[in-house]
């Protein structure tokens, strides 16, 4: 058990290290002043409160979509609908935040809940299609992302659009619905606390409840789960609905924390970032915030570097891609691991033999 965690961690670190090395090579080859670029990529994001705030506020949507993906990946459901769920969740929160008058705390609660329900309803479609018709959730969730996106745009355009605003945007959100700031000098909002709360909730759900147990067993070996009497059809459905719910909450929290109107006319892409975070965290909810912060740090670093130096931020996108490939590479370090295992076993064997000879 300890050895497994050790190797998994080592593999992640090596993958990140190798990707950074490659980044170094790329930066050195495209930049006139690589030292300057590197400084802004790696060190600068940690030097001012504003940048640190930027990193943390970016972490909030990553955590929610990362949790959503972990939930579905744990059940081995490759539903990539976090993108659509996130978007429609923000639309749902917008609708509530514009329409209703409620006291502070209560209104954001219902707006976020509405976002979660919207996301959950969305992912019910691929979930039921998979469970009843054995339609690949991968395909249907990808297609559903488009449907949810255009459905959201349709709702905003036809029911909540503020014609007086210059660009396409909704009416102003009720100020009582907005989440308050928690770190002076930054835009970091209460959503960060909500996100951390959900990390704990999702962890408890997956590892301490009977429903979480059913999800994990179904994901590990669905035939074993069926043989044991677990209702795997139900698991397939509720794991995806909860995933969509989490993504929807993420969208709602992001909107209420960062914006005064709904003004996305393209999908923000946080669903895909959730896939990255979940893969790096190996679906462990407790590791999600760590990798969310790491990804946020990379993004802000890339921004800063692109603004001040001659290295474009696309380079960082390439680095991210390489990192994911390496982290998911099961065989990375397999040779090293094998040698360590052999050495350990040989030592054990010698001990045992010594014992036998004496006995």
């Amino acid at each position: 058990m300890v050895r497994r965690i050790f190797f998994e961690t080592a593999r992640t670190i090596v993958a990140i290290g190798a990707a950074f090395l490659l980044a170094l090579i790329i930066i050195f080859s495209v930049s006139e002043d690589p030292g300057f670029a590197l400084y802004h990529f790696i060190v600068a994001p940690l030097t001012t409160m504003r940048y640190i705030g930027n990193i943390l506020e970016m972490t909030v949507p990553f955590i929610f979509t990362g949790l959503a993906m972990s939930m579905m990946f744990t059940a081995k459901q490759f539903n990539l609908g976090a993108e659509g769920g996130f978007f429609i969740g923000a639309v749902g929160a917008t609708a509530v935040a514009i329409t209703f008058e409620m006291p502070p705390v209560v209104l954001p609660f219902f707006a976020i809940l509405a976002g979660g329900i919207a996301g959950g309803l969305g992912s019910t479609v691929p979930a039921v299609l998979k469970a009843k018709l054995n339609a690949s959730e991968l395909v249907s969730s990808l297609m559903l992302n488009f449907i949810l996106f255009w459905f959201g745009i349709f709702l905003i355009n036809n029911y909540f659009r503020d014609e007086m605003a210059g660009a396409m945007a909704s009416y102003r959100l009720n100020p009582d619905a907005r989440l308050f700031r928690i770190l002076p000098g930054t835009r970091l909002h209460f959503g960060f606390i909500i996100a951390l709360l959900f990390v704990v909730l999702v962890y408890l759900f997956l590892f301490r409840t009977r429903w979480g147990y059913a999800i994990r067993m179904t994901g590990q070996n669905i035939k074993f789960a069926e043989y044991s009497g677990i209702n795997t059809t139900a698991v397939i459905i509720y794991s995806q609905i909860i995933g969509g719910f989490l993504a929807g909450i993420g969208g709602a929290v992001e909107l209420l924390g960062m914006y005064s109107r709904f003004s996305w006319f393209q999908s923000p892409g946080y669903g895909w970032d959730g896939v990255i975070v979940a893969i790096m965290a190996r679906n462990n909810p407790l590791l999600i915030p760590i990798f969310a912060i790491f990804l946020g740090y990379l993004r802000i670093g890339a921004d800063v570097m692109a603004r001040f130096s001659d290295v474009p931020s696309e380079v960082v996108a390439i680095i991210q891609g390489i990192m994911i490939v390496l982290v998911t590479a099961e065989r990375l370090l397999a040779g090293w691991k094998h040698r360590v295992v052999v050495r350990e076993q040989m030592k054990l064997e010698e001990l045992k033999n010594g014992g036998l000879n004496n006995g």
Partner: protein
Amino acid sequence: MEVYLEAMEEILRMESITKVYPNGIVANKNVDFSVRKGEIHAIVGENGAGKSTLMKILFGMEQPEEGEIKLKGETINISSPSAAIRYGIGMVHQHFMLVPSLTVAENLVMGIEPKRNNFFFDYKKAVQMTDEVSKKYNLSIDPKAVVDTLAVGKKQKIEILKALVRGAEILILDEPTAVLTPQETKELFEELINLKNQGFTIIFISHKLKEVKQITDRLTILRNGRSMGVHDTKNTSEQEISRLMVGRDVLLKVEKEPAKPGKTVLKTNQLSYYSDADTPVVKKIDMDIKTGQILGIAGVEGNGQGELVDLLTGMKKASGGHILIHGKETTELSVKEVRDMKVSHIPEDRMIYGVSGDGSIEENLISDRFDEKKYNIRLLMNVKKLTELAKQLVADYSIRCASEKQQVRMLSGGNIQKVVVAREFSSEPELIIANQPTRGIDVGSTEFIRKQLVKLRDKGTAVLLVSADLNEVLELSDSLMVMYEGEIVAYFQDASVVTEMELGLYMLGLKRMSEKELGGVMSG
């Protein structure tokens, strides 16, 4: 230990082979092994002793950590099965590597197809080649038969021919008789002796001592990954071999009192299952198991036993007929509902159904009861209580592990099976459906599991035992049925009067009881 360096020509030698698998299992440790030209050499040992690993190394499927292989005195490096074939080493696997939809000839020449004009596949030539080799080596087979339609024994012949056609001089047979009936085994042995007389060298992997005694010249014993020496077969008694294999004297006799059958627990009525519209797999089965009784089902694997078990446990839905447990119809119930009627199930394939290899021992032990009220406190599981349960079961069933949090995948086959058995036996079952409960596990675990089964029977549990191991069904069953092509073809109220040979005839479909005989005994 004697050293064999006699005049007879040594053809192959493996020296101090050590193999460690990525999961840390030391499968071979400093194993020396050598064979002479023209002998039949057995490798014997319990399951998990390292026989298959040693042969996989020889056939290039695994690379050893240490050690070297010498062929006719020269050190060689066998990097892959194709390299092994080039060196004249052929292997017949336990699970056949054939394309079922193609003919015998097509399978035989796969990869070395004869060509017309250097391009087109020459089927006629392939048939001719097949005819020639099968005559030459006296392994009669119809080249144009589709593999799918052939019996297991014939399929094995194709595998042997495949190796011979590719120029094998050394043939490795991995547990060749495991899937054969006594009659087919006899035929195989005649063919092997014939090959030996033609100068072929045969390595015969087995744990059936009777067979080893019968046809091999020498034998190498493996225990726990180590060699226990080379012995001349004729100078070594079965008793001695078995002691060296296991490290102690074992008696696989299970002591049991005569059964005291009580009320009927499980009853089926004309139970049928079709895999598709017109392929019946289970045909109109009637049976009746009572409390305190072990009913055995013998049969060659794949004659519908697996499907029958799936029907009884709710994993498949019947196409016709009825299942009654304690008089209540369960035909349409889910797995969960059947389990709630105190039915336990030891599945045929433990790694696919019996456990989740990635899960911990604890997670695997609770899979049938994690949702019970007593293991949950409102929304959360009672982790403390579940761990206590796991610890208790690990101790009661002597599951050898570092802790109950260890991954099941890391355990040996016998201990994995003990995890399954611990879960299934500890739920106070009134009916146990055990499908191949001791397949592929060590003697110690086998003995333990069999004793537990008898113990539960004595407490009044009804047991349905499905096994391809004749010794097991004969040893444990109170009553016995034989399944052939989805039907019950024989029923013996008293299993102790049946012989292996007689069972073989029914298993092969050469003999069957009349309706009257079957029906007559059933009601009696």
